[in-house]
C-alpha cells in the first residue's frame, strides 16, 4: 500500500495526500504522508508488527491509535520509547522496533513466551533472591533483557523551557463536551484555554460515528470548530498534554519542547473515556485492536485497517463502527455482541441490510494466528466469563474490540476525586472534586451526544458563576443514558495468554495468583504483579484487574476500587521538568578585575569569589605567596560578599542585645565589637562585628552564607518584639575590601585624607566614616587575618573604582590581591573559627571557647536559657588547635579524631602554613584530649593514624601585636 492506496477523501482528516514522505522502518524504505503518525504510515504500508512485548517478546501492533498503549513504542535514532501512534512522521525518519534479539520479525527471545509457565507473577521477587547472594548473579543477566530502547549517549540536548500561562478557565479536552464548554464560557466573557492532547480538535467527533447515517459527528464538529477557532476569548493548545492537576488548578501542560505552567481560576476536565479491550486468549495479536483505533485509522488517516473484519462489542457503538468499516470497503465478516441484543433495535437491521451477520450473547474466545491475526474462535457465552464448547471459526485479518469505556479519571483523582463503581451499570462515577473543578462529557458518564454537549455548557455555566461572569448557573434536562459497559468482558482460557495488561504481559491467572498469594488489596496486587505500572499506567488494565480482584476476593468492584492515579498522566521527559534551568549567580562589583588578574574562582553560596590568584595546579604556591605578602607587605581581598545589615533607630542596641550574645548598650560610637549569635537551642549559628557609627546606628556584618537567613530571623523576632528599630540588608549595596598587612596604613593614607589613620586616632577595632579616593566609605579596623588591616565598605556602584584606586595606590608598596583560600589560611594561623566550617549544628559557645563573648548579666538573648542549661552539663567535646610536622600526612576536613578505639571528634580546618613551617588545623576532640601538648590521634586518608599535637591558639602572633599596630 502506498500513499495512493488510501481511502478516498473526505476520509483522512489529518493527512496531506500531496505531500508524500519517505522514511525507514527496520531498515526498509517506506512511504507515508505528511500528517501521518509513524504508526498510521506503517499500517498504510501493511506493517502491523511494531514492537515486541516487555516480558515474553510477543509480537505487538497498534492497539489504541491514540497514544494510550505501549504496543507502539519505537526507537528513533536519538530517542527511545517514542509512541509511534502519537509521533508525527517526518521526512527521512529512521525508525526501528524495540526489545528484540535479532530482528523484529524473528525475535530470538520470543521463545521466552513458551516459558511463561515458569515465569509466574512475582517471579522476580521470589526466584532470584534465594539463596542469599543469588541476585548478584542473576542481576546482570536480567538487566540485559530488561528495559526498553537504546539511549544515544552522544545526543545533543535540545532547548526546553517553561512558561506560565494565566487564564480564567482551562478546558482539558477538545471533544464535544470541551468544545461546548469552551464556547459557552467564552461567549459569556471568560478567557478560555482549550487544551487538546491530539493534533486535531473535536475528539470523537472527528472519528467516531454517532448515528446510522454517519453524518452528525462531522457536521457538529465543523459547526463547533468554526465558532471556537475564531473566538477571540479562546486560546487553543493542540498537541498539548495536561499531565497533572496540582493544587489550586496549577496544570503542567506539555507542548513540544515547552512545559506550560497553566494557572487557571476554574478548570473543566472533559478528557473523555478510554475504549476498553476484551480479555480473551491472544487478544494482543497484531490485527486485534480497539474499535476506536480502527475508526481513527479510517477517518483520520484514510487507512483501511484490514480486508476482512470481525467486531467484538459490549455496546451499541460497535454496530455503528461496523457501518464505518463497511463503508470503508472492509468486508465485515461478523459482529459479535457480548450482550443478548443491542439497545437500539434499528442497528441490527442496518447491519443485516448490509449483509453483516450478528452473533449475540457471544464472544471471541481466542484469536488465531502467529504474527498476525488470521481467524477468531467465536463461542456463545454460557455464564459470566464462561463459554459454550461449540466453536465457530471465522477467518479475518482485523478484530475490533470494545468492552465499554473507562473515564479518563487520572487528573480528577489527582485532584482528590473519589472513583466509585456502580455495579448495576458497570460504570465508574466520580465525586469529591475540589472547588473550581468541573467535569463534562463521557468522563462524567455522559455518552449521548446531546447530553455531552449539554454537560459541557452546564459545566461552563458553573464555572462562570464562580468567576463572577454569570449570576446563576443552569442545569438542563438530560436524556436517559444507555449502559455502555459490558459487565464481565473477561474470558479465561485454559492455555492462558488472555492479557489483562499488555505493557507488563500479565494474564488473567497472574492477577488471580496474586490474590491467592494473599494480596487482596488492589494496591498490593499492583505492587506484587506490576499490573498498571507500565507506560499505559492501567488505562486498559485497571478495570479488568479490579473486576478480577473483586471476584476472586468475593467483593464488589466498588469495594475493591482501582489503584491510585498519580502524576504524570503520560511519560514526560526530564528535560521538560528541568526546563531551561535557572542557576542564579552573584558577582561583586570587582568580579571582572579578579578575572583579569587570573583569579581561580570558587562558589560561596550563589556568589563567585576568588580562591586565589593563579593557576589551579599552583594552588599551594599561590596561597603561600599571597599569605607571605599579607604578613610582610600588603594584600587586598574582596569581601563584598560579607553580609551587611544596617540596624537603626532608638532600640538598635536593644535589638542587638537580644539577638547576639554580647552586650551592645554601652558600646562606644566609633568602635566595633565581636558579635556571636546562638539560636534558641544554644547553638552557634553566625558571627560578625557590630560597628557603631552613631548612637542609634549599628552596622552589623554577618557571614556570607548566613546573612539572608539572619536578616529574616531578625525581622521575625522584631515582628514579635515591636522594638523601634529599622533593619536593612545592605549586603549587595556595599562593595568591600579588606586591605591587610603591615603596609596597609600607608596605602590607605595615600587615598584617604579626612580620617586620622594614626594608631591613636584610629585604633584597632575602631570604625570611621570618610572618603577613600573620593568615595564615601565605612572603615573598620579588623583583625581577622591577624595583621594591621582595614575593611573599606563603599556603595556598590563605586566598588570597581575603589579596587582600581587601591591597586594603583598600592603599586608603590607591591600590593597583591589575595583570595578566600588564602584568607582561610591566614585566619587559621590566628586560630579564628569560621562559623559553619569549624562549627556544626550542635556547636555550643563553650565548645569553641567563646564563653568570653557572652554577656551573662543581660536579661535575655535568644540562646541564653539553652546556653545556661548546656553550661551546667559536662562539656562533651572541644575545638582545639593542632599541629603536625611539615612532612606528615596532612589530615583533611572531616577526618576523624580518635580516642582509643572510639571517635572523639573530627578535623574542621587543616592547611600547611609556610609562616609556621608546619601543618596546622582545628579539630573537635574529647575535653580530656584538649590540653596543649597532648597527642591527638587523627585517622587520615587510607586509614593511617597520625599523632598531632594539641596547640594553644592562636598559632601565630599569640599576643596579637601585629593586628593592633
Amino acid at each position, binding site marked *: 500500500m502506498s500513499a495512493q492506496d488510501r481511502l478516498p477523501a473526505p476520509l483522512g482528516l489529518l493527512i496531506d495526500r500531496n505531500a508524500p514522505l519517505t522514511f525507514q522502518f527496520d531498515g526498509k524504505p517506506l512511504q507515508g504522508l505528511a500528517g501521518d503518525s509513524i504508526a498510521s504510515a506503517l499500517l498504510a504500508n501493511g506493517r502491523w508488527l511494531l514492537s515486541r512485548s516487555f516480558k515474553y517478546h510477543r509480537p505487538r501492533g497498534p492497539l489504541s491509535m491514540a497514544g494510550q498503549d505501549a504496543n507502539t513504542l519505537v526507537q528513533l535514532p536519538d530517542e527511545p520509547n517514542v509512541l509511534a501512534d502519537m509521533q508525527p512522521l517526518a521526512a527521512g525518519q529512521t525508525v526501528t522496533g524495540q526489545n528484540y534479539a535479532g530482528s523484529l520479525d524473528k525475535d530470538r527471545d520470543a521463545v521466552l513466551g513458551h516459558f511463561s509457565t515458569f515465569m509466574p507473577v512475582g517471579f522476580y521477587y521470589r526466584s532470584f533472591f534465594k539463596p542469599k547472594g543469588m541476585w548478584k548473579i542473576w542481576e546482570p543477566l536480567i538487566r540485559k533483557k530488561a528495559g526498553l530502547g537504546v539511549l544515544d549517549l552522544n545526543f545533543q540536548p535540545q532547548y526546553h*523551557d*517553561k*512558561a*506560565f*500561562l*494565566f487564564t480564567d478557565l482551562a478546558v482539558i479536552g477538545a471533544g464535544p463536551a470541551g468544545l461546548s464548554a469552551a464556547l459557552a464560557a467564552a461567549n459569556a466573557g471568560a478567557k478560555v484555554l482549550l487544551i487538546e492532547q491530539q493534533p486535531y480538535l473535536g475528539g470523537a467527533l472527528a472519528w467516531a460515528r454517532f448515528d446510522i447515517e454517519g453524518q452528525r459527528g462531522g457536521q457538529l464538529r465543523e459547526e463547533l470548530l468554526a465558532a471556537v477557532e475564531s473566538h477571540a476569548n479562546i486560546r487553543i493548545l493542540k498537541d498539548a498534554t495536561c499531565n497533572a492537576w496540582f493544587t489550586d488548578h496549577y496544570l503542567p501542560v506539555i507542548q513540544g519542547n515547552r512545559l506550560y*505552567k497553566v*494557572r487557571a481560576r476554574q478548570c473543566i476536565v472533559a478528557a473523555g473515556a478510554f475504549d476498553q479491550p476484551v480479555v480473551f486468549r491472544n487478544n494482543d495479536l497484531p490485527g486485534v485492536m480497539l474499535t476506536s483505533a480502527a475508526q481513527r485509522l479510517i477517518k483520520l488517516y484514510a487507512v483501511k485497517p484490514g480486508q476482512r473484519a470481525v467486531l467484538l462489542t459490549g455496546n451499541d457503538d460497535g454496530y455503528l463502527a461496523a457501518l464505518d468499516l463497511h463503508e470503508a470497503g472492509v468486508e465485515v465478516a461478523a459482529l459479535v455482541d457480548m450482550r443478548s441484543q443491542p439497545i437500539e433495535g434499528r442497528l441490527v437491521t442496518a447491519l443485516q441490510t448490509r449483509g453483516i451477520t450478528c452473533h449475540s450473547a457471544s464472544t471471541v474466545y481466542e484469536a488465531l494466528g502467529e504474527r498476525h491475526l488470521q481467524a477468531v474462535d467465536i463461542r456463545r457465552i454460557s455464564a459470566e466469563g464462561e463459554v459454550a464448547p461449540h466453536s465457530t471459526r471465522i477467518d479475518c485479518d482485523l478484530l475490533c474490540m470494545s468492552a465499554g469505556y473507562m473515564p479518563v479519571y487520572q487528573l480528577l483523582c489527582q485532584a482528590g476525586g473519589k472513583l466509585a463503581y456502580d455495579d448495576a451499570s458497570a460504570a465508574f462515577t466520580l465525586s469529591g472534586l475540589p472547588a473550581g473543578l468541573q467535569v463534562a462529557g463521557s468522563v462524567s458518564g455522559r455518552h449521548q451526544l446531546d447530553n455531552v454537549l449539554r454537560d459541557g455548557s452546564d459545566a461552563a455555566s458553573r464555572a462562570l458563576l464562580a468567576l463572577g461572569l454569570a449570576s446563576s448557573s443552569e442545569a438542563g434536562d438530560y436524556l436517559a443514558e444507555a449502559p455502555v459497559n459490558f459487565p464481565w468482558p473477561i474470558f479465561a482460557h485454559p492455555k492462558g495468554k488472555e492479557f489483562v495488561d499488555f505493557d507488563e504481559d500479565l494474564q488473567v491467572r497472574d492477577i488471580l495468583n496474586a490474590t491467592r498469594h494473599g494480596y487482596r488489596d488492589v494496591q498490593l496486587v499492583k505492587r506484587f504483579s506490576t499490573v498498571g505500572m507500565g507506560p499505559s499506567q492501567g488505562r486498559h488494565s485497571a478495570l479488568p484487574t479490579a473486576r478480577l480482584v473483586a471476584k476472586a476476593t468475593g467483593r464488589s468492584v466498588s469495594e475493591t476500587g482501582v489503584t491510585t492515579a498519580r502524576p504524570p498522566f503520560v511519560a514526560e521527559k526530564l528535560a521538560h521538568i528541568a526546563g*531551561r534551568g*535557572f*542557576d*542564579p*549567580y*552573584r*558577582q*561583586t*562589583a570587582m*568580579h*571582572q578585575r579578579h578575572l583579569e588578574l587570573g583569579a581561580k574562582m570558587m562558589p560561596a553560596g*550563589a*556568589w563567585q569569589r576568588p580562591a586565589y590568584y593563579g593557576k589551579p595546579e599552583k594552588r599551594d604556591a599561590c596561597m603561600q605567596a599571597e599569605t607571605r605578602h599579607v604578613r610582610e607587605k600588603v594584600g587586598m581581598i574582596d569581601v*563584598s560578599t560579607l553580609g551587611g545589615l*544596617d540596624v*537603626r*533607630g*532608638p532600640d538598635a542596641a536593644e535589638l542587638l542585645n537580644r539577638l547576639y550574645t554580647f552586650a551592645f548598650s554601652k558600646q562606644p560610637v566609633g568602635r566595633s565589637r565581636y558579635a556571636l549569635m546562638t539560636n534558641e537551642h544554644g547553638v552557634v549559628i553566625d558571627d560578625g562585628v557590630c560597628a557603631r557609627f*552613631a548612637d*542609634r*546606628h549599628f552596622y552589623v556584618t554577618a557571614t556570607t552564607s548566613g546573612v539572608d537567613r539572619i536578616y529574616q530571623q531578625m525581622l521575625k523576632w522584631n515582628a514579635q518584639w515591636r522594638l*523601634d528599630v*529599622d533593619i*536593612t540588608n*545592605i549586603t*549587595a*549595596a*556595599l562593595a568591600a575590601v579588606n586591605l591587610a598587612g603591615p603596609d596597609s596604613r600607608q596605602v590607605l593614607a595615600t587615598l584617604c585624607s579626612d580620617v586620622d589613620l594614626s594608631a591613636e586616632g584610629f585604633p584597632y577595632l575602631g570604625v570611621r566614616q570618610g572618603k577613600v*579616593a*573620593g*568615595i564615601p566609605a565605612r572603615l573598620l579596623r579588623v583583625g581577622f587575618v591577624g595583621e594591621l588591616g582595614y575593611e573599606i565598605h563603599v*556603595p*556598590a*556602584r*563605586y566598588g*570597581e*573604582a575603589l579596587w582600581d584606586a587601591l591597586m594603583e595606590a598600592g603599586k608603590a608598596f607591591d600590593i597583591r590581591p589575595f583570595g578566600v583560600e588564602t584568607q582561610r589560611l591566614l585566619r587559621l594561623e590566628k586560630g579564628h573559627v569560621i562559623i559553619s566550617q569549624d562549627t556544626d549544628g550542635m556547636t555550643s559557645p563553650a565548645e569553641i571557647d567563646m564563653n568570653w563573648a557572652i554577656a551573662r548579666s543581660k536579661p535575655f538573648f535568644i540562646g541564653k536559657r539553652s546556653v545556661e542549661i548546656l553550661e551546667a552539663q559536662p562539656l562533651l567535646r572541644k575545638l582545639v588547635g593542632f599541629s603536625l610536622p611539615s612532612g606528615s600526612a596532612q589530615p583533611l576536613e572531616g577526618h576523624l579524631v580518635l580516642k582509643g578505639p572510639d571517635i572523639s571528634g573530627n578535623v574542621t580546618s587543616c592547611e600547611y602554613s609556610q609562616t609556621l613551617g608546619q601543618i596546622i588545623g582545628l579539630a573537635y576532640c574529647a575535653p580530656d584530649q584538649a590540653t596543649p601538648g597532648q597527642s591527638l590521634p587523627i585517622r587520615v586518608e587510607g586509614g593511617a593514624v597520625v599523632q598531632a599535637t594539641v596547640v594553644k591558639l592562636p598559632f601565630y602572633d599569640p599576643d596579637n601585636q601585629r593586628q593592633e599596630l
Partner: protein
Amino acid sequence: MSLHAEHFSERSPLYRLHQDAQLNALGDSCIVSNYGAGDERARAAHCGLLDLSNLARVGFRGAASAAYLEARGYQLPAVPNQALSQADGSQVLRMSQAEYLLLGSLQDTGARVRQEELAWQFDDTPNYLLPRQDSHAWLLLSGTCQAEVMAKLCGVDLRAEAFPVGSVAQTSAARINVIIANLPLGELPCLHILCDRASADYFWGALLDAMQEFGGQPVGLDALR
C-alpha cells in the same frame, strides 16, 4: 573623545555588556544611547531591554517617611504595591505600609531623586534611607511582548488586564527576587524591573534568553525618546 564607562567612578554592574555601544552621560555616570545597529525604536516597541542601573533611585522607610516625602513635594500611592508618577517623570513606588522607593526620571537624568539621597540626614526621626541604587540594578523591559517574556520567568500574571499601569509586584523571576512595576514611558509599554545588583549579569542573560523567541534585544536610550 567617545565616552567610556570606566571614565566614571560610578558604574553599572552591566557596563561590560555594552562595550560596543554608543554612550551618553547620565548624571555622574553614563547610559547606552544606542547599539548602532537596526531600528532600535521598533525593537523597543516590540521587545527591548535597557540597562537603567545608573539612573538614580533611593528608598525611605519608617513611620515618618510618608510625611517626609510629602513635605518634599512627592505624591504618594495610597496603598502598598502601587506606583504613582510624579509630574517631573519621577516615580514613587509604595513597597509596604511605611516603605517607599523613588525612581529617578529620565527627564532630569535622575537629578531630583539623586538629590534626595544626598539631602537625607540621619537624625532622630523614623525615616531611614535605603540604598536602592546600590542594592538593586534597574532594567527596563519595553514593548508589547513584555508579559509573555516575563511569563517564562515569573509566576505573577503581568498581562495588562491583571497588572495594570501603576501596579507593583515584589516577586521572584528566574529564581531571584525582583521588584516589577508597570510604568509606561508615554505610549511605550514598560516593565521596570529592579533586581539584586550582584545578580544583574545573571538576570540580564536570563531576560535576553526569554526575549529571544520574540526577537527581543537590548536597546539604547535613544529608542525611548
